[in-house]
């Protein structure tokens, strides 16, 4: 048992923290990410230089990371910095392309020259891929897609769009370039898109990609949870600082016990959030992955919005202003629960896994107990 991260990852983490860790950066962020192109000019290329995209791939795949741990390191720093760069879409697409052996595209993506986004969600589809309504059909030598995709994170400006659609074989995965996206800002900054497909020609990457898409989405959920941990840390620290500085009725707000105790709960939730992310990260790729990822997304979906609401309340009016960085952290912490399935979607996932007929009533005490290892 060892909770330290490797030296290489620590270096990446430190580098990112230095790169992002200053107020002017946040100002630039807020000035840029609420309208097209929804990114801070120049940052994407610098992230590539720092090796962020290389961290999403193993050495075999052309990078130097590729594990859930690498992803957690990158996204925690993104969360601390409140980065709205379209990292999530890039991660999802890179993992899917890596599974398909598309070294050509991956090389460009590691270099930051090509950006990707994944279109899997639909207006009525949140986490259950079997409900995919979009369809793919052969047309001549190629394929055409029909249907509507929504919640395409990082869609605006993406060079490569991967799209899921039903095929006779299952859940097909298709590649689009120059897709006719309907683009918008996210409420918490960054770009999002929808896509209406009417006999849209596309390249077929796989006729059934359900398992890799599920795996990529679970990794994306870990990434979002880690981002939330970083953002919670920052927002809680900002709240502590504010309460120390601000005086009311002749004494610092920090001296009011009712406020103190609420901050303690925020800290406690931050610790629990960090722990469940560690658990999900350690389970990634094991039979416990789905359960622990669902737990993480459910837990973060409860505690991150709570921390956001408490932070605003404890700041008072200032926490409601656009100018104060904390308000943007709060927005991010709430909106995270709207991405890749929310608290309730993942509670339902867990409930299905724990139902008596699911045979998952008793559980191992640790990640791998001696029994389960020998079994």
């Amino acid at each position, binding site marked *: 048992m060892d909770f330290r991260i490797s030296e290489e990852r620590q270096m990446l983490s430190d580098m990112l923290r230095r790169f992002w860790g200053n107020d002017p950066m946040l100002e630039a962020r807020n000035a840029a990410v609420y309208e097209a192109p929804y990114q801070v000019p120049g940052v994407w290329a610098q992230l590539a230089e720092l090796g962020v995209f290389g961290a999403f791939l193993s050495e075999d795949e052309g990078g130097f990371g590729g594990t859930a741990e690498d992803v957690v390191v990158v996204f925690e720093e993104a969360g601390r910095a409140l980065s709205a760069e379209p990292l999530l879409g890039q991660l999802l697409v890179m993992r899917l392309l890596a599974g398909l052996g598309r070294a050509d595209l991956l090389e460009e993506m590691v270099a930051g020259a090509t950006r990707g986004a994944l279109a899997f969600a639909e207006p009525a589809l949140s986490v259950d891929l079997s409900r995919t309504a979009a369809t793919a059909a052969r047309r001549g030598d190629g394929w055409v897609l029909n249907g509507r995709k929504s919640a395409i994170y990082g869609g605006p400006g993406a060079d490569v769009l991967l799209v899921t659609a039903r095929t006779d074989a299952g859940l097909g995965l298709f590649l689009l370039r120059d897709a006719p996206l309907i683009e918008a*800002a996210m409420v*918490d900054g960054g770009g999002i898109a929808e896509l209406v497909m009417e006999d849209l020609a596309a390249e077929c990457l796989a006729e059934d990609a359900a398992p890799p898409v599920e795996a990529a989405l679970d990794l994306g959920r870990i990434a979002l949870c880690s981002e939330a941990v970083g953002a919670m840390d920052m927002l809680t620290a900002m709240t502590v600082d504010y309460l120390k500085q601000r005086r*009311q009725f002749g004494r610092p707000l920090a001296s009011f016990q009712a406020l103190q105790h609420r901050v303690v709960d925020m800290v406690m939730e931050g610790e629990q959030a960090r722990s469940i992310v560690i658990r999900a990260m350690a389970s990634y790729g094991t039979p416990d992955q789905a359960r622990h990822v669902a737990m993480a997304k459910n837990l973060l979906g409860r505690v991150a919005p709570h921390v956001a609401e408490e932070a605003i*309340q404890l700041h*008072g009016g200032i926490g409601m*202003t656009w100018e104060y960085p904390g308000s943007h952290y*709060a927005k991010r912490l709430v*909106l995270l629960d709207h991405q890749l399935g*929310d608290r309730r979607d993942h509670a339902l996932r867990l409930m299905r896994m724990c139902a008596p007929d699911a045979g998952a009533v008793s559980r191992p005490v640790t990640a791998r107990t001696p029994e389960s290892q020998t079994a």
Partner: protein
Amino acid sequence: MDLDFTAEEQAFRKHVREVIRGELPREISDKVLQGRGLTKEDIECWQAILNRHGWLATTWPAEFGGPGWSVVERHIFNEECALASAPRIVTFGLVMLGPVLIKFGTKEQQDHYLPRILDGRDWWCQGYSEPGAGSDLAGLKTRAVRDGDTYVINGQKTWTTLGQHANWIFCLVRTATEGKPQDGISFVLVDVNSPGVEMRPIKLIDGSKEVNEVFFTDVRVPVTNLVGEENKGWTIAKYLLTHERTNIAGVGHSTKDLEKFRKLAAEIERDGEKVADNPLYAMRAAELEADLEAMRVTNLRLLADASSGAAEGHRSSLLKIKGTQIRQELQNLYRSALGSAAALDADDLSENELAVPVEAARAAPVYFNHRKLSIYGGSNEIQRNIVAKELFRE
């Protein structure tokens, strides 16, 4: 015991409802329903309609132009306005300054200002909070120094709601620094167009611009603009804080919001299930509805006490706390129900391109905006302090 409204009150509701629904322009109620911003003209339009019916200054005595309603009739009117998605009345002139002038003002002040509030010639805003003093008004620093027949005002106010539309502001200013901090505060009326007044908008978390900072630099105000006695402004501030607040729970708004949620939940589907059929949403909605139904009665109980003059002040604090909790929770549920669609800042898109129902498009920004409910008007922590003081009184 009788929870029903009287036949007269029911007839009153029917009448009010018909008039509101008949007169309120659809484009305005749609904006309210969908959480989109109202223009100055929208608000003025609605207030002019109400004024035509004599329904604008509902808390003023009839001799000053109020409708002469009972607290129950006022409650019914407010509820019907909320249910019809009418714009909120701008309270600063009508609910705050008006009653202050009626109680503390001179005959001249009443004769001059009250009619101008009613007919919309004056749009008032409020200068209470300061950057260093939010809920703690005793700590305010804006100074007014007497110079012959004028005060010279220097300082800064903040959180001035809709100040961008206002031509007048009433302010608490410090006119003396001796004695207790509460002493030495005065209540003064200031023409926003006076030299030295500067209004700067504050952009809020949801991108809206509804509050402002106001800077005063050597602003000269005639001493006739003082309301009540010099250095006794604290009395007026307290009067307003404990002033009848039976509408503070926002029960009408919550009723409307719950209705909106149920409509949305019956429409949108997620992973093969209507949100309305998802037990996790359905339970939360059912329990919130029970909370709201209880709140409705709690509010009526306080109204009944207010009617008979027996209302205890700290109970309106309980109304405010629980009422805002319910309102915020409903916003929370509504936003959540939308799932990934809530993340779009939908004002950027034309309606027909969106997969989001149009009335839900601004769910997340409105949710964030509503966090203010537990902060302004005396934060919920302040309200808890007020109740605790009453409970633990020796």
